[in-house]
C-alpha cells in the first residue's frame, strides 16, 4: 500500500521550476552571500492542495456527525454529535503528541513508528525526511494525516450509538487510535511498514480507515450487545434531511480524502477525483435500483447509503483505476453492503445501530479486493497491475492485507472494549437508555417543544 511517490519526469519538472524560481525570489536577501545552498524546495501548488484537502477531510467528521445524527432517535442526536466532536478533539491531540510519530515516525521492525517525532519534534516547514511527500512541508503532510486519524475512530460510533457511556467512549477512542489505528497506518503507509513492503495497494485508506473501523464496529456491536427493544422496538431515523446533509458533506470532503492522497496537485489527483466521484454516483444509483426492485420504492436513506458505500469502496483504488474500473467498483459497493444490511444483520442478529460494519466494513473489504482486480499501471506507474491487467498475484496480496488488518482490528478492538468495560463500564443504565443520552449524559435537549 504505497502512497504514490514522486519520481522520474515529474520530479525533474519540479526541480527545474525550483531552480528557475528560487534564485529570483531570494536574490535580494541573498545578495551578500551568493554561494549559500538553496533551501529544500516545496511546491506551492502541491502545498496549497494538500492544506485544502486537509480542511476538506476535517469537514467529513462534522459531516459524519450529521449523517449519524439524523439516523438516531430524537433523544440521542446530541450524544452522537458529541462523540464525533470529541474524536476531533481528543484524537487530534493524541496525533500531535505521539500518534503521528507512532504511525509515520522512524520504523521499528515494520510494525510501528518510533517516538522520535514525539510532540512533532523535527516536524517542520521543510519536506519530511522519509520521502512521504517530497514537495510539501512536513507539517502539511502531518495535518492531512491527522484528519484521517480523527475520522477513523469516529466511524465506529455507528455501531454503538444510543447506548455507550461517554467517558468509556472517550477512553476507547484514545486507546483504539493508539493501539489499532497508528500501527495499521504504519504497516500500510509508514516508511518500512510490512504491508507496504509486501506490495499491498491502498491509495487513500480503504484498509487503514474503512476495513479497520468497519471491523472494529463489528467488535463493538458484539461487545456492547443490542439496544433495548432491538430490532422491532427501535423508532426510525428521526431526521433524514440531516442524514442527507451529512452524506453531502462526506461526499464533498471525500475529494480531499482521495484526490488529496495523491499528495500533489496534478494528473494523479485529477484521476483520483474522477474515480471517486464516478464510484459514488454509480453506487448511489445502484442502491436506489435495488430498493426499487426489492421494496418497490427507491428510498432516500438507501441512496445516501449507496453513495457512502461507493466512496468507501473506491478509497483504496482511487489512484489506481480508470473511470470504467470505478464504475465496476461502484456496482459492487452497492450490491454487497445492500446484502449485508438486508440479510447478514438480520440473520446474525447483531445490533450495529447505524450499519458501520455493513457499509464501512463490507464496503472497505470489497474496495481493497476490487483494487486487486481493477488496478492498472496505465493510471499510476507507481501502483501495480491487478487481475484484469493480467496480474492475479496482486489480488492475492490484497486479500492477504485485508485479512491481516481485519483480524488484527477485530481482536484488538474487542480486547479494548472488554478492558474499558472492566474499568469504567461500557453501557449506560437502562433508565438512561430509555430517557435518552442527550438529557442523561449531557444535560441538554436537541429540540425544545415551545420556542
Amino acid at each position, binding site marked *: 500500500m504505497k502512497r504514490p511517490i514522486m519520481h522520474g519526469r515529474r520530479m525533474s519538472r519540479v526541480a527545474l521550476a525550483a531552480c528557475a524560481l528560487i534564485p529570483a525570489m531570494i536574490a535580494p536577501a541573498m545578495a551578500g552571500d551568493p554561494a549559500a545552498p538553496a533551501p529544500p524546495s516545496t511546491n506551492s501548488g502541491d502545498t496549497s492542495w494538500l492544506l485544502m484537502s486537509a480542511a476538506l477531510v476535517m469537514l467529513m467528521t462534522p459531516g459524519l456527525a450529521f449523517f449519524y445524527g439524523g439516523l438516531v432517535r430524537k433523544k440521542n442526536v446530541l450524544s452522537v454529535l458529541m462523540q464525533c466532536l470529541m474524536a476531533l478533539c481528543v484524537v487530534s491531540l493524541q496525533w500531535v503528541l505521539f500518534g503521528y510519530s507512532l504511525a509515520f515516525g522512524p520504523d521499528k521492525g515494520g510494525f510501528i513508528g518510533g517516538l522520535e517525532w514525539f510532540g512533532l519534534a523535527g516536524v517542520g516547514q521543510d519536506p519530511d525526511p522519509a520521502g512521504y511527500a517530497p514537495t510539501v512541508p512536513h507539517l502539511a503532510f502531518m495535518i492531512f494525516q491527522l484528519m484521517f486519524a480523527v475520522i477513523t475512530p469516529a466511524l465506529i460510533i455507528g455501531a454503538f450509538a444510543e447506548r455507550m457511556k461517554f467517558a468509556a467512549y472517550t477512553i476507547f477512542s484514545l486507546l483504539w487510535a493508539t493501539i489499532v489505528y497508528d500501527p495499521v497506518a504504519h504497516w500500510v503507509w509508514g516508511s518500512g511498514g510490512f504491508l507496504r513492503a509486501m506490495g499491498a495497494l491502498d491509495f487513500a485508506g480503504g484498509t487503514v480507515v474503512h476495513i479497520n473501523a468497519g471491523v472494529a464496529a463489528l467488535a463493538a456491536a458484539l461487545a456492547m450487545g443490542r439496544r433495548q427493544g432491538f430490532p422491532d422496538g427501535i423508532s426510525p431515523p428521526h431526521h433524514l434531511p440531516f442524514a442527507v446533509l451529512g452524506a453531502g458533506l462526506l461526499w464533498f470532503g471525500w475529494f480531499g480524502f482521495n484526490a488529496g492522497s495523491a499528495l500533489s496537485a496534478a494528473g494523479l489527483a485529477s484521476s483520483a477525483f474522477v474515480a471517486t466521484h464516478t464510484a459514488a454516483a454509480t453506487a448511489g444509483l445502484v442502491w436506489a435500483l435495488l430498493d426499487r426492485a*426489492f421494496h418497490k*420504492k427507491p428510498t432516500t*436513506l438507501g441512496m445516501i447509503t449507496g453513495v457512502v458505500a461507493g466512496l468507501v469502496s473506491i478509497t483504496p483504488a482511487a489512484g489506481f483505476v480508470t473511470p470504467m474500473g470505478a464504475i465496476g467498483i461502484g456496482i459492487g459497493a452497492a450490491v454487497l453492503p445492500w446484502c449485508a444490511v438486508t440479510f447478514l444483520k438480520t440473520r446474525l442478529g447483531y445490533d450495529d445501530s447505524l450499519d458501520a460494519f455493513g457499509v464501512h466494513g463490507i464496503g472497505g473489504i470489497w474496495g481493497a479486493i476490487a483494487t486487486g482486480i481493477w488496478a492498472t499501471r496505465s493510471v499510476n506507474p507507481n501502483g501495480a497491475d491487478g487481475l484484469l491487467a493480467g496480474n492475479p498475484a496482486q489480488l492475492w496480496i490484497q486479500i492477504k492485507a485485508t485479512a491481516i488488518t481485519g483480524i488484527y482490528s477485530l481482536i484488538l478492538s474487542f480486547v479494548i472494549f472488554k478492558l474499558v468495560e472492566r474499568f469504567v463500564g461500557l453501557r449506560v443504565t437502562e433508565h438512561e437508555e430509555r430517557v435518552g443520552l442527550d438529557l442523561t449524559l449531557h444535560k441538554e435537549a436537541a429540540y425544545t417543544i415551545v420556542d
Partner: protein
Amino acid sequence: MKYVIAIIQPDRLDEVLRRLTEKEIHLVTVSNVVGRGRQKGIAAVYRSHKEMGNLLRKVKLEIAVNEAFVQPTIDAIIAGARSGEIGDGKIFVIDLPRCIRIRTGEEGGEAIG
C-alpha cells in the same frame, strides 16, 4: 356554547378552512397530531428494515361556537374533509360551560366570536 373538535386528513386542511370561512367561522385552533383508527399504518422501509408505522399523521381542529353555528361548522368540516375513503376522520361536539376573552374579561357568547 359547544366545543367542536375535528380530526381530519392533513391534506384536507386548506379546503376545510375555506369552507369554514364561507360560513363566517374564523376562529380555529389547528394542531399536528398522530393517531390511529381503522385506516391502519403505512409501512416504511429503512435500509431494508420494514417499519409498520401504526400511528398516522392527522390534523386536529378545535372550534368554540355559539349554538347557531354548531351545524354550519359541522357541515363545513364535512364538506371540506370528506373523500369517502377510510381515514377521513371524526368530529366530536361537547358542551362548553364557560368562555372568557382574556383581553376584555367578557364571558359567554359575547366572548366566543
